[in-house]
């Protein structure tokens, strides 16, 4: 006679080889444990939905840490409480996979509180199965965040006291307040009706993910006869009598019918597109190192300082970029740390024909002081025979040192005359280049054209360079 047989679902391994030892056919779960029922209906759903190859189960820390012994699907074992974060990584990396985060009450509602809330709040397209059995089973029966008030556990030996330990956490209620979750329901394992409901709920939570609808959360009130020190049958009754009145069994949120499936199309960029995105399109420019030219000066250790808004940092970046175009070694380091206090800004710029050591200029051979406090702060640090350029429009004193070359330029006034005080820094660069000849002014101008983001200001900046050059020729040659 032919018979239709309902037996162990094929999403379970035939033999539980990973379990090791001699008994490879039964689970490690205690008699009457709810995990077994849930594993069974989950395995059945995976087979029926045809998703066995692409399903990845994240097992938590707790009794179900060994879920991977049984499920013939992809398995990842996570650190305590972190399953939703691990699931996030899995799903974001492989959007075609079906990711299930399977967690107990300690894992999900205590140590992993932040992970579950934020995965839910991001609306990760995953399915979370939360087994609430009001106790820590794996570690031997300690109090869980969902332990009932009055319930005795090894760490609440006189019964959970709301004064000392607070009240049990209702996760469905919390999760369902968030915008993103698509489906939140609590069920229980107490009788055929509720087990049947649990079957349906799990399938719906998986279907939502298959349809790319978003985050589904299923809480299942499940028995732990060993931890509760009750028979299997009494445990189910205890859920009905004690847990369900506090943890109502119902749909908390279901917007799955109103949700448009998300697109999971992945864009794969070509190498060229990647380089474009990163702003790294090869310039095709040949190296134009003029070795003779490089030998003409010693390393420029510059300190450029002023107040915020004077373009001090930009001047440094521009100089570095110009020198880079000349194939010099360069470094630029912004003021970092206590120096920045008081609204002053400065940067260290090194230009060299050799590999640069320290990028931090403590004894500059070039100081550009755009305001008074900058001269006060750095004048004494300048090396003997060094160069100090001051913005004489603002700096109201002379350079005191007589062992350095001091250049005064009314930078702000000149810039103001040009109609834009912000180009004072470029006038200064022009002057510096004329004084030192470290960088060819043509290269400098090309660099400005390339690097200046606001193209409408290119002309005035180029003119500023010329003004700086002119000022030095007229006043210091």
């Amino acid at each position: 006679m032919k018979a239709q047989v309902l037996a162990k679902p094929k999403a379970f391994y035939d033999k539980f080889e990973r379990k090791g030892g001699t008994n490879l056919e039964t689970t490690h779960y205690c008699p009457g444990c709810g995990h077994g029922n849930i594993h069974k209906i989950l395995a059945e759903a995976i087979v029926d939905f045809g998703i066995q190859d692409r399903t990845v189960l994240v097992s938590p820390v707790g009794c179900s840490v060994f879920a991977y012994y049984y499920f013939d699907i992809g398995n990842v074992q996570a650190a305590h409480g972190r399953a939703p974060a691990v699931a996030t990584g899995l799903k974001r990396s492989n959007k075609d996979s079906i990711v299930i985060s399977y967690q107990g009450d300690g894992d999900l509602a205590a140590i992993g509180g932040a992970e579950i809330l934020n995965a839910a709040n991001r609306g990760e397209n995953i399915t979370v199965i939360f087994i609430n059995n009001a106790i820590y089973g794996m570690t031997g029966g300690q109090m869980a965040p969902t332990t009932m008030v009055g319930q005795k556990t090894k760490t609440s030996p006189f019964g959970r006291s709301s004064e000392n330990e607070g009240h049990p956490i209702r996760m469905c209620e919390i999760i369902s307040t968030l915008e993103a979750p698509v489906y939140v329901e609590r069920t229980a394992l107490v009788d055929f009706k509720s087990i049947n409901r649990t079957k349906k709920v799990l399938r719906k939570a998986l279907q939502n993910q298959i349809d790319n609808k978003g985050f589904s959360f299923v809480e299942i009130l499940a028995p732990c006869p060993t931890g509760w020190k009750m028979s299997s049958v009494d445990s189910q009754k205890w859920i009905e009598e004690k847990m369900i009145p506090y943890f109502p069994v119902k749909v908390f949120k279901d917007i799955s019918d109103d949700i448009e499936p998300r697109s999971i199309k992945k864009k794969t960029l070509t190498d060229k597109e990647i380089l474009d995105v990163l702003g790294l399109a090869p310039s095709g420019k040949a190296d134009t190192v003029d070795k003779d030219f490089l030998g003409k000066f010693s390393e420029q250790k510059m300190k450029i300082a002023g107040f915020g808004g004077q373009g001090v940092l930009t001047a440094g970046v521009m100089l570095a970029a110009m020198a880079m175009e000349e194939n010099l070694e360069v470094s630029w380091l912004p003021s970092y740390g206590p120096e920045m206090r008081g609204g002053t800004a400065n940067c260290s710029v090194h230009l060299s024909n050799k590999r640069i050591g320290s990028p931090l200029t403590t004894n500059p051979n070039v100081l550009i002081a755009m305001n008074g406090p900058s001269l006060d702060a750095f004048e004494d640090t300048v090396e003997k025979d060094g160069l100090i350029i001051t913005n004489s429009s603002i700096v109201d004193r002379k350079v005191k040192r007589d062992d350095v070359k001091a250049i005064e330029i009314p930078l702000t006034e000149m810039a103001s005359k040009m109609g834009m005080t912000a180009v004072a820094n470029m006038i200064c660069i022009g002057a510096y280049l004329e004084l030192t000849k470290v960088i060819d002014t043509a290269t400098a101008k090309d660099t400005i054209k390339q690097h200046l983001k606001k193209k409408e200001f290119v002309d005035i900046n180029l003119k500023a360079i010329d003004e700086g050059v002119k000022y030095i020729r007229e006043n210091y040659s």
Partner: protein
Amino acid sequence: MSNEIVEVDFQLPAIKVINHLCKGCGLCIEHCPKNCIEFSGKFNQLGYDYAQYNGEGCTGCSICFYACPEPGAIEVYKKVKGE
């Protein structure tokens, strides 16, 4: 349903308790609406008093299958539809 078709030589519908996999929790016995599952009074290698079908009254409702926490301990056999 993860249903397979197999050849059997017993009356249908029926259930089988794979007795060496049974942990004797008694949930199938508790939930069987026809009260046709019972403790065997014998102990398997795991040390549990395993359940057994008493041979009569099974309707193939599958309640025991889902009430049983052990993946492979209960199998339910029904007539093939349309036969």
